[in-house]
C-alpha cells in the first residue's frame, strides 16, 4: 500500500566486500595489537589501575554487544516487521560476544585488585560473612561461565539460524527462532542482571541495589540502538543497503533511542530517589562517592547529557527523520554510555576524586579495535540483510 510496493529485494542479497576495506581492517588490526600489548605493559606497571580501566572498557563494549542481542531477541519474540532489514547487523554485532567472553579473562586474573571481598579473610567483616554464600570466588566463577555461556550460545544460535534461512527461505526457521527467543528473554534478563551484580555492583560489597540490573540494561539497550544507527549509516555511506533501508527505518530507530533515553532516566532516577529518600548508610555510600568531589561533575553530566539533551533533541519528528542529525545524537548517546560506565567503575579506584589516567584509554583502544577488526570479517560473510526472511517484503515498505 505504499510508493515502495514495487521494490523487490534481489534474491541473492547484498554483500559487503571486505577486501574493499583492507586499509581500515589493517588499521584496526594494528591498533588492536598495539593497544593490547600496551595493556599487558600497563598490567605489569600499574596492575590496580589497569584492572579498573579494563573492567570499564569491558563493561562498555559488553553492554553494546549484549544490547544488540537484546534487540534480536525482541525482534523474534514480538514478530517485528520493521527490524527485519537491520537485523543482520544486530546479529553481526552480537556475534562479537564470544570475543568479549575471552576479554573477561583479565577480570578474573586481576580479581584481587577489583573485588575487595575476594581478599578479606573470613571472620573479619560480619557483613561480608553473611554474604559469603553468594560472594565467594568459585560461585562467582561458575556464574560468570553460565552468564557468558548464555550470551555466546544465544548470539551464535540466532545468527546461524538466520543465515541458514538465507539459503532456502524456510519459514520454519522463523518459527523456531521465535520460540527460542521467548525462552531466551528470560535467560537474557537473568544473565545481564547477575552479570551486572557480579562484575559491577560487587565492586563495593557493602552496597546493593535491586534496580542495578535494569539500570545497566537500560543503558545497554539505548546505546546499542544508537550503535546500530551508526553502523547502518556507515554501510549506507559506503553504498550498501541504499534500496533497502529508508527514512522510515531511521524513524523507528530514533523512536527507540528516545524511548530508552526516557527509560534510562526513569530507572536511574528511581534508583537514586529511593536511596536518597530512605537514607540508609549501606545504600547511600554509592551516591555519596559519586556526588562529591570532581565525580559530581561527571554525575551531573550524565543527568544532563544522557537524559535532558537527547530527550529534548529526539522529541521532534524531524530529528528522527534526518539521518545526519540522528547519527550525531547516536554518537553522543554512545559517548554518554562510556561516561556512565566510567562513573560506575572508576570512582571505586579513585575515591578522592576523578583522575583520568593514560591506562584508561588502552583497554578501550585494544578491545574496540579488536571488535572493529572482527566485525569487518563477520559482516562480509553473509548478505547484509536476511534475504529470505518471510517478512522482508513488509519490512521494506513499512511506514510509521
Amino acid at each position, binding site marked *: *500500500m*505504499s*510508493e515502495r510496493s514495487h521494490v523487490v529485494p534481489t534474491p541473492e542479497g547484498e554483500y559487503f566486500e571486505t577486501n574493499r576495506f583492507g586499509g581500515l581492517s589493517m588499521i584496526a588490526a594494528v591498533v588492536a595489537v598495539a593497544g593490547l600489548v600496551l595493556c599487558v605493559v600497563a598490567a605489569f606497571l600499574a596492575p590496580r589501575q589497569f584492572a579498573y580501566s579494563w573492567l570499564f572498557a569491558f563493561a562498555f563494549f559488553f553492554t553494546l554487544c549484549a544490547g544488540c542481542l537484546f534487540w534480536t531477541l525482541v525482534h523474534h519474540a514480538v514478530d517485528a516487521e520493521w527490524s527485519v532489514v537491520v537485523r543482520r547487523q544486530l546479529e553481526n554485532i552480537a556475534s562479537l560476544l564470544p570475543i568479549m567472553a575471552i576479554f573477561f579473562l583479565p577480570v578474573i586474573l586481576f580479581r584481587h585488585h577489583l573485588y575487595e571481598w575476594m581478599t578479606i579473610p573470613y571472620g573479619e567483616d560480619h557483613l561480608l560473612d553473611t554474604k559469603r554464600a553468594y560472594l565467594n570466588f568459585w560461585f562467582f566463577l561458575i556464574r560468570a561461565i553460565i552468564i557468558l555461556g548464555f550470551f555466546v550460545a544465544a548470539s551464535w544460535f540466532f545468527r546461524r539460524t538466520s543465515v541458514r534461512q538465507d539459503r532456502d527461505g524456510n519459514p520454519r526457521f522463523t518459527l523456531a527462532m521465535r520460540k527460542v527467543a521467548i525462552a531466551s528473554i528470560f535467560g537474557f534478563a537473568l544473565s545481564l542482571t547477575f552479570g551486572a551484580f557480579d562484575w559491577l555492583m560487587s565492586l563495593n560489597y557493602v552496597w546493593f541495589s535491586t534496580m542495578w540490573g535494569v539500570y545497566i540494561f537500560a543503558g545497554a539497550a539505548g546505546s546499542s540502538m544508537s550503535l546500530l544507527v551508526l553502523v547502518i549509516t556507515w554501510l549506507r555511506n559506503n553504498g550498501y543497503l541504499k534500496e533497502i533501508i529508508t527514512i522510515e527505518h531511521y524513524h523507528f530507530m530514533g523512536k527507540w533511542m528516545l524511548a530508552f533515553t526516557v527509560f534510562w532516566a526513569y530507572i536511574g*532516577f528511581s534508583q537514586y*530517589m529511593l536511596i*536518597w529518600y530512605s*537514607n540508609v548508610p549501606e545504600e547511600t555510600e554509592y551516591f555519596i562517592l559519586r556526588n562529591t568531589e570532581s565525580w559530581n561533575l561527571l554525575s551531573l553530566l550524565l543527568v544532563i547529557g544522557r537524559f535532558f539533551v537527547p530527550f529534548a533533541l529526539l522529541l521532534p*519528528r524531524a530529528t528522527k527523520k534526518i539521518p545526519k542529525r540522528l547519527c550525531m545524537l547516536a554518537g553522543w548517546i554512545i559517548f554518554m554510555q562510556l561516561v556512565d560506565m566510567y562513573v560506575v567503575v572508576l570512582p571505586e579506584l579513585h575515591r578522592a576524586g576523578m583522575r583520568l589516567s593514560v591506562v584508561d584509554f588502552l583497554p578501550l583502544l585494544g578491545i574496540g579495535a579488536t571488535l572493529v577488526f572482527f566485525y569487518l570479517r563477520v559482516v562480509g560473510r553473509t548478505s547484509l540483510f536476511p534475504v529470505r526472511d518471510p517478512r522482508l517484503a513488509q519490512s521494506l515498505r513499512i*511506514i510509521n
Partner: protein
Amino acid sequence: MRTPSGNKVYAIAAEYPSAAALYEAAKRVRDAGFKRWDVHSPFPIHGMDDAMGLGKSWLSAPVLLGGITGFLTAIALTFGPSTFIYPLIVHGKPTDWRTAPAFFPIMFELTVLCAAFTCFFAMLIMNGLPRWHHPIFNWDRFSRATNDSFFLVIEARDPRFTEQEAVQLLQESGGQHITVVHED
C-alpha cells in the same frame, strides 16, 4: 448548490470495492487539488496519509503545551508550599531547590496527565467531536463504512468543488454508486 428537492448539498460521495481501489482514488483526488474531502474504511489503510497528502497533524503542538503546563503546575504545587509558604524539614532533607528529587515524580505525573488530557480533548476538537449527527449519514449505503465497504467523500464547501468535476473524477477513479449527499 441544491438538490432538486431544495436541500443544500453536503457532498458527492462514491463507493469503492476494495482498499486498493480507494487508495488509488485518493491519490487522484489529491492530485486534482481538492482540500475538503475524506475517505472512510472499516480499518486503517497503511500509507493513506500520503495518498491523501495529509502531512503531519498539528496535534503535537497542543500536547507539548499541555505537557509544559502540567510541568509548571507541578513546580508551583511542590516548591510553592514546601519552599516558600510552609517549609518543613522532613528526614533531615533540605527545603530549597536541593529537595527537587522528591518532587520529580509529581512533575513527571502531572506532565504526563496534562499532556494526555490535552491530547485526548484536542483530538476530539480537531475531529469536530462530539456531535449528534453528520450529513454523510443521510446516505443509507454509508452504514457499510464500518462493515465491508470503502467510501470517498468530496465536500461541497471545497473551493474547487463543482458537481461535474467531482462526479467525473469519482467515475474515472472507479467509484460506484456515485451519490449527491444532501445536508439536513
